[in-house]
């Protein structure tokens, strides 16, 4: 999982229950590194996107108050087996990651 995004998607009827966990430090920019004593700069995911078959389903705008290794769960209507679900994020440093899975 090089992207660090783990997806658990379950189809029940025409609804897809999606749970994701994304590896990210989500530094608030106010935390002091106990060893060096310096403040760790802010580094957090600002936007996470969910796309079904390329169509944007959900955009999550996040601030630094979202917990480290963010968890994000939501449901999609009108999903069916074989659809491709893509989860991607971008953070305040412009870094990005994305992961795709096929609903089954």
């Amino acid at each position, binding site marked *: 999982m090089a992207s660090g995004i783990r997806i658990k998607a379950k189809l029940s009827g025409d609804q897809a229950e999606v749970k994701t966990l994304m590896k990210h430090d989500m530094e608030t920019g106010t935390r002091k590194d106990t060893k060096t004593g310096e403040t760790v700069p802010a580094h957090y995911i600002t936007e996470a996107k969910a796309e079904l078959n390329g169509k944007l389903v959900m*955009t999550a*705008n996040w601030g*630094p108050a979202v917990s480290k290794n963010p968890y*994000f769960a939501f449901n999609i*209507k009108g999903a069916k087996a074989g659809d491709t679900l893509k989860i991607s994020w971008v953070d305040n440093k412009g870094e990005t990651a994305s992961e795709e899975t096929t609903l089954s």
Partner: protein
Amino acid sequence: MHNTRRLFLKGAAAAAALMALPRALLAWPDKAFKANSRDDAMQALFGTTDSSESSAVMLNAPDIAENGRVVPISVSSTLEGVTSISILVEQNPSPLAASFDLGPGAVPEVSTRLKMGKTSNVIAVVKADGKLHTAQKEVKVTIGGCGG
């Protein structure tokens, strides 16, 4: 005449600033996330603070957080035409924690985990057909301790 010129300049400057932001950040409600009061955040995010508590908005949050760094929060709504779900932690330095924009096909139900600095009201704000509906709950946060 004079006035419009300044407006024009300000506009250009603002546009230039926006250009500098990475493309994805254009949609990111920067001011709302930087606001440090509940009302300022809502004003910046929605352009208004008037909202009404509604039982059609369900906020699931613990009474006492096991740990303020990882507080599981879920918000769902039975309202029609929900376009966004936002979560504010009133006592956090900047209350707006997350704001979910729902596209077509998205069910109005989201779960995530938030950091809370101390005991605070957690407010869910659901925007449906342009109106704001809220649910609120106090979550106690304890600091320090041996972890049991």
